[in-house]
């Protein structure tokens, strides 16, 4: 509980922004869905067959899993807010259309006849009689749609539209329960709030509904206009994957670029999503730069024939750079020093007592070892299986959740764990990473990735980002992650601090 409160306090501005984004996406989608579904229901009302076709169609649309729908939209409209809104609108159509249609067809025919007999025009009849009578149905349709939208909008974070989903995603990624809870609870609370607001409108006369809807539309138009007229200098969008490390890196990029050309407008998209998503965003021109790992490039981005040959870190980078260039016309700048790769870690004190430096040194203490490893590591060929084969090591292991293994080694229940070499916990729990002296773990080095045309148009940016080549050691990265994750310092501050102390940036 305390944990949640402190997380809440330290991230309140993020939360507010996420809430605002979430609300904006949801309400805009709801509004668009209303503007499509209600007139559609009115138009097809006299044509029973057509109406049935639309009912079927909207229910079919709703059966598409939301994740699949988002995926389908990416090649068509790219990423970000637009596909998110399209997907949400698609989901909201059915309840609104169905309820409006039912509400209109359930009107007592005697009332319809009276309206005709009194000489009301089609429009007058619609606004004076039909819509008000169908209003309770329409509103409960809107209510259903709103709850649906606000829930589904958490998925918008997956395609870079932000919102409360980014809290949840980040929480899952970092195994940070408070973040997940804050994201989920806020989203639920928002749904309740909106649903309550709509319920209030249901019980008040049309004037109120129109007034509040008009206010929202005005607000949105206002915000949109402001965005549109706001002077726009050259904007460079830099995104990062989930987690503190990419966040720190992209802040460094931003600082370096701004120091070089102060007029450039740099937009940062932290915790923007997972690998394939960022990669597509880059190719679609939705973002301009993001830091990627050499290992990841070979593993999952480029097409490459499987080789048994083990590559050194420079070889990996060269191959990644060449293939990205050939297959995707992307430019991959020089990598930084640290390797964020699988590692085996023991307590620093344990290492000292047994003179451990390399993984091969473990032979001497093999009988004393008791491992706490993640399931993934145990199962991978370049994980524990490889360790057994290449280092001829074997010891009893216990599979555990990523966050638990650090506590397990701290409390002495195990004495060796797997880790990512830049995890902040290594520093937090005073663990020592053993050197992979037989090069089992594929090298993962980080470097900025951008489109070729972008690189050609911005040689100064390529230059300034290359200042980071060969900089930042694994220990540096661990320290910075530690400052952000444990000491709760902002990524911006930590990034800046590093650049200043290493004279990459002048005060």
């Amino acid at each position, binding site marked *: 509980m305390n944990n949640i409160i402190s997380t809440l306090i330290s991230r309140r501005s993020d939360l507010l922004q996420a809430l605002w984004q979430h609300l904006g996406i949801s309400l805009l989608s709801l509004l668009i869905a209303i503007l499509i579904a209600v007139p559609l229901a009115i138009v097809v009302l006299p044509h029973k067959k057509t109406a049935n076709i639309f009912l079927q169609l909207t229910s079919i649309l709703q059966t598409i899993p939301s994740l699949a729908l988002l995926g389908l939209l990416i090649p068509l409209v790219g990423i970000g807010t637009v596909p998110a809104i399209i997907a949400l609108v698609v989901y909201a159509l059915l309840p609104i259309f169905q309820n409006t249609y039912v509400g209109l067809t359930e009107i*007592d025919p*005697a*009332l319809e*006849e*009276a*309206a*005709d*007999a*009194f*000489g*009301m*025009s089609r429009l*007058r009849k619609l606004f*004076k*009689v039909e819509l*008000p*009578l169908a*209003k309770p149905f329409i509103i409960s349709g809107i209510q259903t749609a709103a709850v649906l939208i606000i829930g589904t909008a958490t998925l918008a974070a997956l395609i870079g539209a932000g919102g409360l989903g980014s809290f949840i995603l980040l929480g899952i990624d970092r195994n940070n329960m408070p973040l997940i809870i804050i994201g989920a609870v806020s989203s639920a609370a928002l749904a309740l709030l909106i649903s309550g607001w709509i319920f209030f409108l249901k019980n008040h006369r049309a004037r109120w509904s129109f007034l509040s809807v008009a206010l929202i539309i005005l607000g949105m138009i206002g915000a949109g206009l402001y965005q549109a007229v706001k002077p726009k200098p050259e904007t460079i969008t830099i995104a990062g994957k989930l987690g503190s490390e990419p966040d720190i890196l992209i802040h460094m990029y931003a600082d370096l670029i701004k120091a070089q050309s102060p007029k450039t407008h740099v937009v940062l998209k932290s915790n923007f999503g997972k690998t394939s998503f960022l990669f597509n965003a880059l190719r679609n021109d939705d973002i301009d730069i993001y830091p990627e790992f050499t290992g990841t490039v070979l593993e999952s981005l480029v097409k490459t024939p499987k080789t048994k040959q083990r590559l050194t870190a420079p070889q990996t980078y060269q191959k990644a750079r060449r293939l990205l260039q050939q297959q995707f016309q992307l430019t991959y700048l020089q990598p930084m020093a640290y390797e964020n790769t699988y590692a085996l870690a023991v307590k620093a004190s344990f290492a000292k007592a047994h003179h451990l430096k390399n993984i091969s040194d473990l032979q001497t203490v093999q009988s004393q070892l008791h491992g706490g490893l993640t399931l993934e590591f145990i199962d991978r060929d370049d994980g524990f299986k490889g360790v057994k084969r290449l280092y001829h090591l074997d010891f009893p292991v216990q599979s555990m959740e990523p966050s638990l293994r650090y506590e397990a080694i701290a409390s002495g229940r195990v004495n060796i764990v797997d880790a990512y070499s830049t995890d902040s916990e290594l520093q937090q729990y005073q663990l020592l990473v053993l050197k992979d002296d037989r090069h089992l773990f594929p090298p993962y080095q980080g470097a900025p990735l951008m489109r070729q045309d972008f690189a050609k148009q911005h040689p100064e940016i390529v230059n300034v980002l290359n200042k980071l080549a060969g900089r930042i050691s694994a220990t540096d990265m661990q320290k910075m992650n530690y400052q952000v994750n444990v000491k709760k310092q902002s990524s911006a501050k930590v990034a800046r601090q590093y650049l200043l102390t290493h004279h990459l940036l002048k005060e």
Partner: protein
Amino acid sequence: MDSNLVNLEDRLANVHDQPLIEFKHVEKKFRQMVAVRDFNLQIQNGEFFVLVGPSGSGKTTTLKMVNRLYEPTAGNIKFLGKNVTAYPINQLRWHMGYVLQKIALFPNLTVAENIALIPEMKGISKSEITSYSRELLKRVQLAPDIYLKRMPAELSGGEAQRVGIVRALASKPPIMLMDEPFSALDPLSRTQLQDLILDLHHELKTTIIFVTHDMKEAMKLGDRIGVMHEGELLQTAKPVTLATDPVNDFVASFFKAKDVLTPLQYELNDVIADNDHIEYTATLPEKSVKFTPHENLNRVIEWMTQHQITVIYVFIKQTHNYAKVSTLDILNFIVHQY
């Protein structure tokens, strides 16, 4: 002649010599089924015309062709000498008040808003609408201050139909179409509203076409009555003529239908007591038929129609003579009881 009904007042003043509404060989088919066939009728300005007939005989269909809720499949209907289709449809409808059995007040609008619907469309000013609404509500015994603000759900059946009538009258239409407006009401409200509509008719001189399946109601309200059966207009006549001179068996039998005869729990006595013009005679003419004063009127009528007898004699004990009672006397008595 222009078609936009603007100078309606003037034109209404000059329609004495021509019918306000005229049906000419009107027919309405629903698919193959003929609901109304070869319907011919003229309704004069200021007339209270009642269409009566059993359910399914085509009354509603006929009425709905007047304000073009239905279009005839043959023949035509004239309003003020011109085909109804010659007028802009909504303007035509603003000049024809419409009252339904289901009342159909709009549940989302207050009484005031319901009443204001048509005058609003006609462009009458708000203040004028309000003052006339108040006047009409008072006229139907609903206190305006209480009822104007009410929602339809807060009205009893009788109150709601009063509002329904006020709503139809609010735009001062020259003609009112009323489709069984009182048949869903309790007997007391029904009688009250029948009296009310008669009063309003005399006061406002509104032409009314009134549909009912209830001959009793037709007799009470109509200046003239048209009897319909299976889509045909069998006879059009004044109430008394209809009873004395039915054009065929159906009209006669419909006239005798049970709801017409229910008030005849009277005795012959009542007919005599009510009438100043009864002739008395000391001696019975030959072959005459004699009844006692306490004979049930129902049985008397049945007997008279069965034996085709138009005059009977009633023995009066007190004066020791006979009262001469004709079918016309009985009819007049019945009509007066409504």
